[in-house]
């Protein structure tokens, strides 16, 4: 079942600036779809339209079969939103902010349960303004989960979290996906998308420039072998050498090329110092796309 359907979405701001230029994607039930992109690529502008905060200038959006902007009252009880920045009165305590939010929902979880999901139970009586950045992110996640949503929107959910809290948050999100919750994620952390997302799209200047599963997106980019070779040797493969003498070889068949190179080095007694070989990662694909598009 398709839960989120975005087709030809364009968003224009009052100044005439087009932040999103005709993008399309679909998210299935229980799937996590990640939107990646450089700053200003249009991720948040896109997500805000899907959440129903504003209407698209062109194109259409459907969430759980309804228009999230015009049929807000049908969609909102079934979704949970974690905005990029909190939005809690700084003088309320964690428990008060959660209780307030629960009071606005049709069928909320108990406040204690929501806080324990994100490990904030021990901070319940602390004012929001005294929380660390990571704790505030977790409170935001607790509120997004408070209404037992079928669809969850996460805008940079782990920014400012320490590594342990980040792992815990990932575990929590995985458990939700397992229960059949659909997630639309935007993040700066490519590792996060690579670990969690079933499919992703990379945005650049309002357009989607790559879309698919992580391996579909990454496989389009070559693997890389790099090392420092003694000066003056003729290498058996095509390579770039930078000013510091570091050689980079790009290949679509890492195993073959690496074998060839190591055999050659063995036969010729050449030392390849600082040898490093790796498959393309999402990070490399992302950087290459950003560079190409710039």
């Amino acid at each position, binding site marked *: 079942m398709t839960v989120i359907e975005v087709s030809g979405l364009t968003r224009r701001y009052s100044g005439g600036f087009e932040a999103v230029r005709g993008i399309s994607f679909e998210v299935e039930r229980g799937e996590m779809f990640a939107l990646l992109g450089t700053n200003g690529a249009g991720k948040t502008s896109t997500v805000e339209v899907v959440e129903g905060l504003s209407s698209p200038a062109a194109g259409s959006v459907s969430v759980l079969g309804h228009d999230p902007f015009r049929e807000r009252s049908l969609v909102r009880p079934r979704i949970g939103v974690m905005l990029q920045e909190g939005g809690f009165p700084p*003088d*309320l305590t964690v428990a*008060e902010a959660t*209780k307030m*939010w629960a009071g606005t929902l049709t069928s909320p979880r108990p406040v204690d349960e929501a806080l324990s999901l994100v490990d904030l139970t021990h901070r319940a009586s602390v004012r929001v303004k005294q929380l660390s950045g990571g704790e505030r992110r977790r409170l935001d996640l607790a*509120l997004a989960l408070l*209404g037992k949503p079928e669809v969850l929107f996460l805008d940079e959910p782990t920014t400012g979290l320490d590594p342990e809290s980040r792992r815990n948050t990932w575990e929590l999100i995985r458990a939700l996906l397992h229960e059949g919750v659909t997630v639309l994620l935007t993040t700066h952390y490519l590792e996060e998308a690579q670990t969690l997302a079933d499919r992703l799209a990379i945005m650049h200047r309002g357009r989607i420039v790559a879309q698919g599963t992580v391996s579909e997106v990454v496989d389009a980019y070559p693997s890389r072998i790099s090392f420092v070779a003694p000066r003056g040797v003729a290498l058996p493969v095509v390579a770039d050498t930078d000013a510091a003498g570091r050689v980079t070889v790009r290949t679509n068949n890492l195993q073959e090329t690496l074998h060839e190179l190591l055999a050659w080095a063995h036969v010729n007694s050449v030392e390849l110092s600082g040898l490093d070989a790796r498959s393309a990662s999402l990070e490399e694909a992302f950087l290459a796309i950003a560079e190409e598009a710039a």
Partner: protein
Amino acid sequence: MRAVAVGQAELTLFWRNKTALFNSLALPLLLAPALMAAANAEGKPLIVGLIGFVLVMAVYYNLVTTFVARREELVLKRLRVGELTDPEILLGASLPSVVVALGQIVLFSAIVAVMTEVAVPTRPWFLVLGVAGGVAVFVLLAAASSAFTRTVEMAQVTSLPILVACLLGSGLFFPLSMLPEGVASAMRLLPLNPVLDLARAGWDGGPVLQPMIVLAVWIVLGTYAVRRWFRWDPRR
């Protein structure tokens, strides 16, 4: 009602905000002697004057600051991704200021009534209508003013035009009959005047139709202004 959840949180914040507490609780008390002198210690004008002050200070001024503060803290934006409708959000955020204002009006009126042995209103429904309409108008005007206010500090400046116009034009400090006829008539169209006229009509047989029309027009204008200009996000 879902808006009450927001109202309760706002009430908690109100008790923790010393400036707001002072503005709405202490200020009217300090102003009472001045009004007392202007009213020659007569009960009815004193009650009418206090209603005017409470509406302008505890409802209008407080709410301009509240709306701006919640907008800049991104609280309004967050509430807007939830289940509440836009009117519910505004209602919830206004609730404590309105409750405090109504409480003050009742309390002051009771004190004044005891002190001056003012007569019981013969047509109390006009008094109630005036106060209710006044609350509606000043909540709407506060929401509209907040759209033109970038920071909480700026609220002191941006609220001045309505604050000063309403109080000076209300006839609370000097009778409007002192002014040239044209100016006086224009003053009667200000948002506070019909409220006070209706309040007075609770005791006297004064005209009620014209103030009711003026008040209704202000409510319509206020609603339009809020729909047209109200900002849910900070300007970035």
